């Protein structure tokens, strides 16, 4: 009898722990989504409500609308800025992901399968640079980018992202190649296939899960970057969402509805990645953190 009670207590404790985890992780995200659909007047109420009393699309209309009204007054629409920043974030993150992935796919392979002088030294240096915080190189980079006229250009921001995220990508891809059997490649070489042909046609398809994991991690890092665009993207030409959205706050009054709506839109790409590519993401995280 006592054992049975203990069993149920254990089950209840377990369920409670799962609930706490769900609340901790999803609670703030739910609150942001809820706020983005909440009527502005309800937002100012002292009364706590955990679901929208009068759901409204007002904040999203303000975000996506050509013209915009705020507290009864016609105000300038934020859509031109918002759409531009969204495109900027997408372009720089996608470009950084593609370049990083290509460099890591070929470079990682060279570090595992090809012999050339200085190989281990180079790999050691690149991996060690993961321990160099971005801000330590920020000031010389800033002066370099000014002299190259790359401030506020897609190329400049993308290159900085690549240099920041390449070491982890290289680390991941190397461990992926190390786990692949060399026999297949040897068979291809014996049949007279060149090294590059073998890598592209035989090895890369096998390494696809690792490539996807690396791509997700790189994209997420770039999408969430704040300090790099804060310094290197002073105008709307390349300004990212992460820099634009906080600017909604620092105006005369804070439009929390608009801010949360914009935040929810910025959360969408990562949320979609987590939902659809979760398997690859977790595997990549584990590989990146442990090996």
């Amino acid at each position, binding site marked *: 009898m006592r054992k049975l009670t203990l069993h149920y207590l254990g089950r209840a404790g377990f369920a409670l722990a799962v609930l706490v985890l769900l609340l901790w992780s999803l609670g703030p995200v739910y609150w942001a989504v809820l706020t983005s659909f909440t009527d502005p007047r309800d937002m100012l109420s002292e009364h706590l409500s955990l679901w929208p009393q009068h759901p409204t699309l007002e904040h999203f209309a303000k975000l996506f609308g050509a013209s915009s009204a705020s507290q009864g007054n016609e105000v300038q629409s934020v859509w031109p800025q918002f759409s531009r920043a969204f495109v900027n974030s997408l372009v720089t993150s996608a470009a950084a992901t593609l370049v990083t992935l290509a460099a890591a796919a070929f470079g990682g392979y060279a570090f595992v399968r090809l012999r050339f002088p200085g190989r281990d030294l180079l790999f050691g240096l690149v991996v060690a640079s993961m321990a160099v915080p971005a801000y330590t190189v920020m*000031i*010389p980079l800033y002066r370099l980018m000014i002299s190259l006229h790359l401030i506020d250009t897609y190329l400049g921001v993308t290159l900085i992202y690549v240099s920041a995220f390449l070491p982890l990508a290289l680390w991941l891809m190397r461990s992926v190649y190390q786990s692949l059997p060399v026999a297949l490649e040897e068979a291809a070489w014996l049949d007279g296939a060149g090294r590059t042909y073998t890598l592209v046609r035989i090895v890369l398809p096998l390494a696809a899960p690792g490539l996807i994991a690396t791509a997700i991690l790189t994209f997420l890092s770039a999408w969430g970057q704040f300090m790099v665009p804060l310094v290197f993207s002073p105008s709307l030409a390349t300004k990212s969402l992460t820099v634009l959205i906080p600017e909604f706050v620092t105006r005369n009054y804070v439009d929390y509805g608009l801010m949360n709506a914009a935040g929810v839109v910025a959360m969408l790409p990562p949320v979609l990645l987590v939902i659809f590519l979760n398997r690859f993401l977790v595997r990549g995280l584990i590989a990146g953190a442990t090996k």
Partner: protein
Amino acid sequence: MNLASIRQRLRPVAGETWLGLAYVLPIILVMASLVFVPLVTTVIDSLYRIDPMRPGTPFIGVLNYKNLAADSNVQHATWNTLVYVVLAVLLETAGGLAAALLLNKVRRGRQWLLAVLVLPWCLPPVVNALVWLWIYNPSYGLLNNLLKAVGLLDNNVVWFNDHNTALLLVALVHVWRMLPLTAIILLAALQAIPADLYEAAKLDGAGRIKCFRMITLPLIAGGLAIALSQSTVFAFNLFDEAWILNGSSLDTRSLIIQVYMSAFQNLKFSYGMALSVLAMIASLVVSLVYVLKVYRETRFD
């Protein structure tokens, strides 16, 4: 074809060296020009006075470093950063270990619970901080309303008025984002423990707590050391959360915010560089020290 001739064909071909170099050339170019040269430049330039507002760049030796030691803003920022590191490491390790132990027990739907767990880590840190800024709002925020609803609070509190509360709240947002990483690392370590170890211990009459102390803890020590050093380095580099939640306020200013302010707002380039060099060394040393310590203390002979 005999084995010898296969070996012959698999020996490094003449072009291999060049092919290897060609594959890594983009890496060499990017890393050298955007990381290694700037890093060396930072160290060297920190010994000069580089200030766009003043003419010339004279060599001043360690003057920047001396001035840093006497700068009360730097002292504030250093103290705040230490508090962030301690809070983040404690909370992330405790919470991450709890989450990892829980997930290790889950049988059905683990994939989805994992997805929920990693979500905060995947979101842009700035957006996280904005969401929490709204939660912490003194007049209409969720935190005040929630505490009033359960009767823990009578009147609204302006959370960021108090220096210590402000530090805790900034650290909490950082922990919310970084805890998944610790949890995932520890979960991977937990799953690598062979189940028969626990069965053997049970046969020997060991209880749950004893099992945890004698088996789990020593066997996840490696993962724990990695998780601890990751938490430390990320907390040392805390910028986004403090900047969004409280701007440049001295109450919550971290070392990195101080670097940013020195270099890009006060335009004292080399002064900022000197501080960034110190911050980098400190972050590396701290994480190294207790990677070694954890290894030594939890090692099983």
